């Protein structure tokens, strides 16, 4: 196979699976990250404690082990799920833990004066978060969130190990049948880069758009 043919043969199912896994896991991570980050700032100690445990557990163990555990161990407790669901769950939970820390520190780094001005204007705590604090915190978080998205995207290559037919899985299959190892894994490298690079750029552009003339 030529280099070109190798790339084309990975573009179908493999690319699709990688992208779908990335998008779904990123949405889950973002939702968990925002919920967790806000709960981490709650006045309720119990709520803070629950989130702290979640964060420590998922940061303190490896994503690969979490993936295996969800896909291979949970079925023994009668919880079975498709490889895609397991992949999204593991990656989303793992990155959600990191994201919650990004969200928490982003919110905390918004100037305290913004909170005071909001109180003086009689905002409710929820209105204050939604209209004043989070929009500013989001801009502070954006570079970190962008990095995490790239990391998350790259980490999806692990899902090949639970038999999900993503880019990496297809490369492995192709390698086993053709043994063109150099071409195949070079093509894989190029494909990951071609997706990651515009993502990075896109986030930089978004960042510039959001801060233009304002900060």
């Amino acid at each position: 196979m030529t280099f070109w043919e190798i790339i084309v043969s990975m573009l179908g199912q493999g690319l699709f699976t990688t992208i779908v896994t990335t998008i779904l896991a990123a949405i889950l991570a973002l939702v968990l990250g925002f919920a967790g980050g806000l709960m981490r700032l709650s006045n309720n100690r119990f709520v803070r404690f629950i989130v702290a445990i979640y964060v420590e557990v998922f940061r303190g163990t490896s994503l690969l082990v979490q993936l295996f555990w969800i896909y291979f161990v949970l079925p023994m407790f009668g919880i079975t799920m498709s490889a895609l669901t397991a992949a999204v769950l593991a990656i989303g939970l793992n990155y959600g833990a990191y994201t919650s820390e990004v969200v928490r520190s982003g919110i905390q780094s918004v100037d305290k004066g913004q909170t005071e001005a909001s109180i003086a204007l009689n905002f409710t705590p929820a209105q204050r978060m939604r209209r004043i604090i989070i929009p500013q915190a989001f801009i502070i978080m954006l570079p970190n969130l962008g990095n995490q998205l790239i990391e998350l995207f790259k980490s999806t290559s692990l899902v090949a190990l639970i038999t999900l037919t993503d880019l990496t899985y297809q490369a492995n299959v192709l390698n086993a049948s053709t043994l063109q190892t150099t071409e195949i894994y070079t093509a894989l490298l190029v494909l990951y880069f071609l997706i990651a690079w515009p993502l990075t750029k896109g986030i930089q552009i978004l960042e510039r758009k959001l801060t233009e003339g304002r900060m």
Partner: protein
Amino acid sequence: MAEPIVKYNKVTKYFDDLQVLDEIDFEIQPGEKVALIGPSGSGKTTFARLLMMLEEITDGTIEVEGEYLWHEKDDKGNLKPASSEHQRKVRSNIGMVFQHFHLFPHMTVLQNIIEAPVTVQGRDKKEATKAGKDMLDKVGLLDKADAYPAQLSGGQKQRVAIARALVMQPKVLIFDEPTSALDPELVGEVLEVIKSIADEGEASMLLITHEMDFAKEVADRIAFFDGGKIVEDGPPSDILYNPQSERLKDFLERFMNTQ
């Protein structure tokens, strides 16, 4: 005499072990402009922030238009800590202008001004926009409606902050050293705006300032803080030209020397 709009009853404030306010009684009449002066660390800011609910009260009560700010009466008529609904209702009468402006950097000037009327007061967006523009006109910044705060000078920022507070139609407006973060050449434009609202406004004002001439010009009354107490309280001419206590005499003397 009319009912006071603000009434402090034996208000005490501690930060941990540090006593900052010591059983202060104090009243502001409707429409009255009161200046607070006193040495650094004497508790002026803390005193005002209690009224804006930016600090927790330790002891005593504050009433706004006869309603407790930090407390509510329970069924038996005993005071208990106020619910957040009650706090917000009473607090809606109070507005504040900060030393460091605290404009919302992610919003334009006009958005800064109409955000709270629309989101908090639920006013119609068209009406709020019109009121906001009128307010901007009043502080002389109508042409900056679409600018972002980062594009303004300090004096302009503070005028926007004043418009933002005014559009909420507070009955009491607090200013905490509104010009001390400004370059000297920008102080005048802000004082002028404050003076014009003081002249035409029905709102009461609580003005913390180190600008004695300005205090004299704008205030109906000056209260002198020292050591967590109000040591003297009276018409500007009495306070500034006929001080009774040694502490106020010292303060004014030191103040004159540094001018």
